[in-house]
């Protein structure tokens, strides 16, 4: 039998000599990174000490390399500072894991805790697939990159008024539709469209109705996570709104969205809402549907409102907002329609809204397609267990799932009959 290596030789590293200065140098470097992360977090030495259960003088010794950070203490320091253990050890940073750590460490509003937990899980799986299954980083399409490059020219700086925000959002939506050759009709699978063009992973999960979702920027990529416990039209508006933040390079790393945030009295939110409205319901497309319905010029009947909701897959509130913006329905007329209630409107005009698209609540579970595809391939190649696929799909890890994943071995994940 061949004898395998043991100890340091097995690890391919030299055995440290008793006089080696390496441990001291390493302790000093770890200490410097602790100090840098603490300053970055705007935290005092006393506060960090409280969080990790040490005195201020002990923190000071660690930061100056006079006290070595024990391996058991590393995770506590990483959690408290919102960084990863890898960062403290000076390893090459893994962006997805770093964001997962910050999502776990950050104390966001209670309403968004479920979204934070799901986002953290997705970033951890992203890191796992990158490390073990060599998943490439997401890349924007040529059109998507062009939109991002030109976004600054149609939206120069922060808009100074609601009107300017409307103009910016509208122009950006027009640029996006034109560059991606989307015409002016309804957009189909918005989540897939965003993923295809913008290096953004999109996930939908039933996360309750306390918060709409969140958007996390990680360098050139991003994750948009929305709660599917809202009507589908509302979810689509949230996705488009978050896309605007991403295209415009919102400097916030984690954007948490409740209804109050999305409609906050701020220029960037007005602009994102204007983008979402024009992107989902461009004026030309709306006019074309009204023409097809035979509406008299300059009027929008209740029946037309219901037909437009169905056609564009949007909520009543989003549609009335957009009809008002493009000057087809006054605010008071919109409120009158709204007072009828969505259910009543749909029941009265079922002929033009057979599916109730936009107003139905799907409670959909949609993981990012990039992650699911790679996880399925990795499971089939036995690089990872099926449990990773189960976590992504939010399904039980059982024989049925195993059969579904493995039944397709030898086929492409995109082939019909696979769980996607």
């Amino acid at each position: 039998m061949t004898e395998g290596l043991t100890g340091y030789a097995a690890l391919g590293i030299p055995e440290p000599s008793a006089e080696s200065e390496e441990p001291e140098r390493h302790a000093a470097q770890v200490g410097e990174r602790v100090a840098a992360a603490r300053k970055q977090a705007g935290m005092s030495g006393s506060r960090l000490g409280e969080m990790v259960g040490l005195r201020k003088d002990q923190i000071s010794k660690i930061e100056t390399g006079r006290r070595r950070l024990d391996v058991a203490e590393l995770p506590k320091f990483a959690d408290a500072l919102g960084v990863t253990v890898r960062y403290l050890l000076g390893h090459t940073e893994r962006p997805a894991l770093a964001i997962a750590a910050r999502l776990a460490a950050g104390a966001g509003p209670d309403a968004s805790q479920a979204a934070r937990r799901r986002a953290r899980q997705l970033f951890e799986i992203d890191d796992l697939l990158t490390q073990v299954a060599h998943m490439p980083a997401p890349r924007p399409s040529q059109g998507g990159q062009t939109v991002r490059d030109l976004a600054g020219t149609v939206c120069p700086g922060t808009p100074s008024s609601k009107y300017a925000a409307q103009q910016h959002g509208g122009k950006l939506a027009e640029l996006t539709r034109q560059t991606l050759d989307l015409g002016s009709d309804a957009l189909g699978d918005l989540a897939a469209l965003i993923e295809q063009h913008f290096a953004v992973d999109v996930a939908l999960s039933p996360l309750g109705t306390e918060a709409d979702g969140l958007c996390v920027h990680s360098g050139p990529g991003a994750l948009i996570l929305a709660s599917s416990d809202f009507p589908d039209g509302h979810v689509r508006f949230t996705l488009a709104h978050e896309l605007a933040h991403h295209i415009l390079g919102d400097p916030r790393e984690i954007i948490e969205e409740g209804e109050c945030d999305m409609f906050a009295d701020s220029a960037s939110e007005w602009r994102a809402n204007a983008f979402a409205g024009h992107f989902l319901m461009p004026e030309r497309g709306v006019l074309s549907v009204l023409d097809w319905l035979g509406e008299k010029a300059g009027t929008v009947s209740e029946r037309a409102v219901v037909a437009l909701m169905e056609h564009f897959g949007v909520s009543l509130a989003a549609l009335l907002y957009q009809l008002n913006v493009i000057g087809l329905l006054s605010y008071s007329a919109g409120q009158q329609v709204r007072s009828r209630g969505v259910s009543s409107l749909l029941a009265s005009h079922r002929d033009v809204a057979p599916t109730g698209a936009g107003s139905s609540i799907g409670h959909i579970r949609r993981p990012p397609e990039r992650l699911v595809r790679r996880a399925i391939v990795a499971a089939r190649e036995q690089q990872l267990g099926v449990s990773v696929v189960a976590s992504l799909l939010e399904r039980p890890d059982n024989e049925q799932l195993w059969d579904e994943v493995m039944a397709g071995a030898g086929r492409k994940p995109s082939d019909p009959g696979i769980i996607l």
Partner: protein
Amino acid sequence: MTMAPASSRTEPVWFPDTSALITMAVHAPLQHAVRETLSAHRRVLLGVVVAELEELAKATHPSAVWATTALCQLEWLGKPVGVDEPAGVELAAEV
């Protein structure tokens, strides 16, 4: 027992943990089978595992006997790697 990718990312390295070593100490056929299988592989004994076995060896019967037996069966795993040294710290964090 934990398996981690080696630095070359091609051949695995085995890290026997305390419970694995104690299990092997109380069941000789199992220890024989594991040694037979893993002797051809790279394997690393972490200093913290030895320290834990030494602590258990001071404890009450029967774990003290198991831990002592385990401590006498470590030769095939080579010299322990300390986790208070940079390489060891990094490994422990990875594993």
